[in-house]
């Protein structure tokens, strides 16, 4: 037993150990993780579908085929409309607020767990790292699924509006047309959605996790949600 020895410094845990604990936590809390992840999925799906739809319209307009297509949206013929920009901004806001809220709730309901881990010798940094890893996984997985759902939605809408022509002029890669704004292309858009989802999830969880880790354990354990 450590009796009169001076109190040593707590060691840092290897990264792999943190990774293992965070995976384990996600696995056992699967149902709850899915709900948090669904919040991210929905936000990113909305953003990607709106944006992809916009790019599809622009690509078809650029191709010169738009006037031959019966159901084309009039607005698309004038490039990116104010409505489109408004929709993209709105979907971004929904994304940020939705994800931040999901992560805030997910961390806040675990204050007691954070306090307990600190009682057992966890360093503040370890607690924060655990939450960042968990939220990073959730953010990436949720955003990837969301981006694919969003893409699927945009493709279905595109097929309805433009038929199979959609696939001939599908804006897969980035383009910078002379008479319009830079087009990100669907591939980059999916990547952007994944990164955005992950970054927002990590930012959304880092503040409450950091705040909880800094609290004295007694206070963290007292917190009722």
């Amino acid at each position: 037993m450590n009796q009169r020895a001076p109190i040593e410094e707590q060691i840092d845990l290897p990264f792999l150990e943190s990774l293992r604990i965070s995976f384990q936590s996600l696995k056992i809390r699967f149902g709850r993780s899915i709900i948090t992840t669904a919040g991210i999925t929905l936000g990113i799906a909305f953003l990607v579908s709106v944006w992809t739809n916009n790019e599809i319209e622009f690509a078809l307009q650029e191709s010169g085929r738009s006037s031959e297509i019966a159901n084309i949206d009039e607005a698309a013929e004038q490039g990116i409309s104010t409505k489109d920009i408004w929709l993209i901004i709105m979907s971004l806001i929904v994304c940020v607020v939705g994800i931040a809220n999901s992560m805030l709730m997910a961390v806040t309901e675990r204050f007691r767990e954070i306090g307990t881990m600190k009682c057992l010798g966890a360093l503040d940094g370890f607690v924060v790292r655990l939450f960042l890893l968990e939220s990073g996984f959730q953010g990436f997985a949720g955003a990837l699924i969301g981006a694919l759902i969003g893409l699927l939605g945009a493709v279905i809408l595109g097929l309805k509006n433009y038929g199979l022509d959609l696939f001939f002029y599908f804006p897969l890669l980035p383009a910078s047309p002379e008479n319009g704004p830079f087009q990100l292309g669907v591939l980059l858009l999916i990547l952007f959605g994944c990164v955005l989802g992950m970054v927002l999830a990590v930012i959304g969880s880092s503040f409450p996790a950091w705040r909880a880790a800094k609290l004295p354990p007694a206070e963290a354990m007292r917190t009722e949600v």
Partner: protein
Amino acid sequence: MPDIVVKTEDVVKEYRMGSNVLRALDGINIEIQRGEYISLMGPSGSGKSTLFNMIGALDRPTEGEVYIDGQNMSNLSQRQIAAFRCHRVGYIFQSYNLLNVRTAHGNVTLPMIFAGIPEKQRNEKAEKLLDKVGLGDRMYHLPDELSGGQRQRVAIARALANDPSIVLADEPTANLDTITGREIIDLIKQLNTEQGVTVISATHDLKMLDVSDRIVDIRDGLVERIRNRDEIEIEVGEVGGHE
């Protein structure tokens, strides 16, 4: 010379709630010797749990000092405080505070993970500890699948994971029925006598009286009196007689 393991000097703890200041501890001075079984007794709101938190480095005093093994806790770095919680103290709580996502075994190994003990070693030790508290056959159950008494046994096994010299128990029997509570008290007492672990327990359970070496009565954030075991035995008889 007595071997003092815990010493508090004029410990004051205030909580601010808006413009109100609640003085939960109003200058506590106590000394606890190594190997003692101490019960901090008092009604709800007396400050015993707050004192428990101060001794266990779970909260910081507003004023005053807490010394553990002669070291002033307010001079320790964050890393030292984490190491202190990990190695020197084992905590047992009223509501068990087990991590619900980890099995009984997983809960007991966690403090050993934080201590950097290799996997094989910590698994063996967790099995041994869970066996010792009588949960050898329920090691891989999640806390939700265990009864209150069993959960508290897991918490005791977890508290012992890194061979602490002090076990702090905050109302360990409050959520348990009389018989299970008695079993838990006996288990904690066994640690105290067999392993020489200093036990500091905040409680208002009278069953704790006859196992304690000393009882510190806390009232309104102050030490009202400190009673020794011989005085306690007389009072237990009286309590028994009244029931």
